[in-house]
């Protein structure tokens, strides 16, 4: 224990000397949250729509204004030749085009189904799926209004949607917990990933080897200062999310602290393992990007739903700690989930931290000879 404390003191002194790194570790995370929490969302509004109205009747104009009034579409341009709509889509000046053919009003007044064409730029499949849904439901509604009463069938079966936990479906509420996990992860990994490999590269590893302390206390001593820094910066970002983005806190603070600590311990251990496994800092950095930063974005369920992934990849996500942390975090803050409901997640986080810390110690012990 004395040894661990000594290493801890030495590490703290070193951190204090490199003010820029300390500054980055504590304040940049909060700045990120501010920037990204504000900038990122999946709410699709202001879809630029090009309109080609070949009919020019009150009915066709009713369709156009139904699109504009729905609040999702902005009228980008009225075009008259088919090539124009194509060009606007190519240039990204329009995301969707609405084409109303000649004779639309006549058809619709006589109670037949009048065709209307909608072209959607599908290059961003995610946006396009949502736009598709909007366009379909707008056309259904306006179609029902325009059709003569005789042709209307009473609705047989209808859906009443209810949304729990986030009734306005604000994507911020779901993205901010993901950002918290991502930011905490990169801060923690970045702070330890270079710690040991640096000593190797600078030739000071000899000193580490000769130091009269056991490997576990060495590791613990190295980690504690960064754990405290990471915890402080995480507290800062959680606080900022609540005051700035209206993230609720429906659960228990102690549960949150527990989940956060376990997650940070795992992340710091990952950094240490990377550091012990690398020969140069360049390698360590690339490894950190590959095995912690990218999976935290891609495989944690932060942005992309895990249930949509192919089964083989779903197995890989079991080894991504952010996956468990996200379920726990979203549960605690958004749903007020009790500790007992997220025990499996907390268990997985502890297991991950213990296993990775153990591996890192083993590797370092081997290096020390």
């Amino acid at each position, binding site marked *: 224990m004395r040894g661990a404390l000594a290493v801890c003191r030495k590490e703290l002194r070193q951190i204090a000397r490199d003010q*820029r790194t300390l500054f980055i570790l504590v304040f940049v995370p909060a700045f990120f949250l501010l920037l990204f929490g504000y900038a990122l969302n999946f709410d699709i509004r202001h879809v630029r729509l090009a309109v080609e109205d070949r009919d020019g009747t009150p009915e066709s104009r009713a369709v156009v204004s139904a699109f504009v009034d729905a609040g999702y579409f902005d009228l980008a341009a009225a075009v008259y030749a088919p090539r124009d709509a194509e060009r606007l889509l190519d240039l990204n000046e329009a995301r969707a085009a609405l084409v109303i053919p000649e004779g639309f009003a006549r058809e619709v007044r006589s109670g037949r189904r009048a065709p209307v064409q909608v072209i959607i*730029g599908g290059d961003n*499949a995610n946006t396009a799926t949502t736009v598709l849904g909007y366009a379909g439901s707008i056309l259904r509604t306006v179609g029902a209004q325009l059709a003569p009463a005789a042709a209307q069938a009473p609705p047989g079966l209808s859906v009443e949607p209810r949304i729990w936990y986030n009734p306005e479906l604000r994507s911020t509420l779901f993205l901010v917990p993901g950002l918290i996990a991502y930011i905490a992860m990169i801060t923690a990994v970045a702070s330890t990933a270079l710690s040991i490999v640096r000593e190797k590269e600078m030739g000071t590893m000899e000193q580490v080897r000769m130091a009269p302390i056991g490997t576990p206390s060495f590791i613990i001593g190295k980690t504690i200062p960064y754990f405290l820094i990471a915890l402080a910066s995480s507290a800062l970002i959680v606080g900022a999310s609540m005051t700035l983005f209206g993230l609720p806190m429906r659960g228990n603070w102690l549960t949150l602290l527990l989940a956060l600590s376990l997650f940070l311990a795992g992340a710091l251990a990952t950094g240490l393992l990377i550091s012990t496994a690398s020969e140069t800092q360049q390698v360590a950095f690339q490894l950190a990007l*590959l095995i912690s930063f990218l999976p935290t974005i891609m495989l944690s369920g932060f942005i992309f739903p895990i249930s949509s992934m192919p089964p083989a990849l779903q197995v890989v996500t079991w080894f991504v700690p952010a996956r468990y942390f996200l379920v726990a975090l979203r549960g605690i803050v958004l749903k007020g989930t009790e500790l007992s409901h997220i025990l499996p997640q907390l268990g997985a986080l502890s297991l991950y931290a213990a296993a990775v810390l153990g591996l890192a110690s083993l590797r370092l012990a081997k290096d020390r000879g």
Partner: protein
Amino acid sequence: MQRLRFLVRKEFQELRRNPRLFGLVVVAPILQLTLLGYAATTDVRDVPMVVADGDRSAASRELIARFDASPYFSVVRTVTTTREIEPFLESGSAWLALSIPVDYGGHVGSRRPAVVQVIADGSDANATTVALGYASSLVAGYAEELAASAADMPAGGGIDARIRIWFNPQLESRHFMIPGVLALVLLVVTANLAAMAIVREKELGTLEQLNVTPLRRWELITGKLLPYGVIGMVDVVLVVGVAVFWFEIPLRGSFVLLLAMSLLYVLCTLALGLFISTVSDTQQQAMMTATFFFLTPMVYLSGFIFPIENMPAVIQPLTYLIPLRYFLVIVRGIFLKGIGLELLWPQAAALAAWGIVVLSLAVARSRKRAA
């Protein structure tokens, strides 16, 4: 010229002596492609749902079967009352719940209007929006079928929506994400490696030695950067090959144009690497600076995942400072839309301008330091 060749050879030798790094620059792009090709799907499939069937009739079972048979939903459990749904949504083991009221079958049978409730977990707003859309169109389709079979009525009036999707008819998010990987890989590999290679010499004190050799400044810089440029271009060919032949992403535009644009972009990322190296004294600082000030903002604000047009108007101007933004438009344009320079020249020009500005900044900084 000869001196330059020696320097480049030295740099390659150092890379070869470090086989793990060499492996990483080949493995990294492949791994990222796999991750993004398979994982990065915003398509919503197999949404776990729980059903509260208060009716337990043939009609209600028919509706549940519709949901279960759809590729979008998978029914994990059927319960009896709405109250039993809550624990499933709370623990996240189901995202969606379908609640069928008592006497649903009676209503449907006697053709009185019936209402079913769909309860969604809004904590994943994105997937929920999509899943709700699927659920309501599934029910709407089923309702039409019921009405038609009951009344032998032809489809009524209204609008026949003919929706067509361009560029990516199956709406596979893979087609959107994978061309983006090219941009991300190049940024990760070239900028970071180049920055750390230079700072490493600084840290080990060997940069001083290089400074006193008869090498000229530009030779030194070119010699350090060139190998990483070569690696970057190898990665381009690798990524494009895997994208086209493995993931079957259509390359509708010109491959030569794609290569030329990638080269322009690699010059930009190398300039960025050089710039990072001039503002860092240790590799740790270089790593922090690269990750926090360049990599992360670029990933999130370039339109790589999150559409720029969704961002608030205050943030949008900021995205013009990000070279990834221009390159993404170029790559996606060439891959998916098959368009050429006649439409892409503004992006190419912006990229070139960005490269020149950053390179001059980096050179100016390093000159001041050397003086």
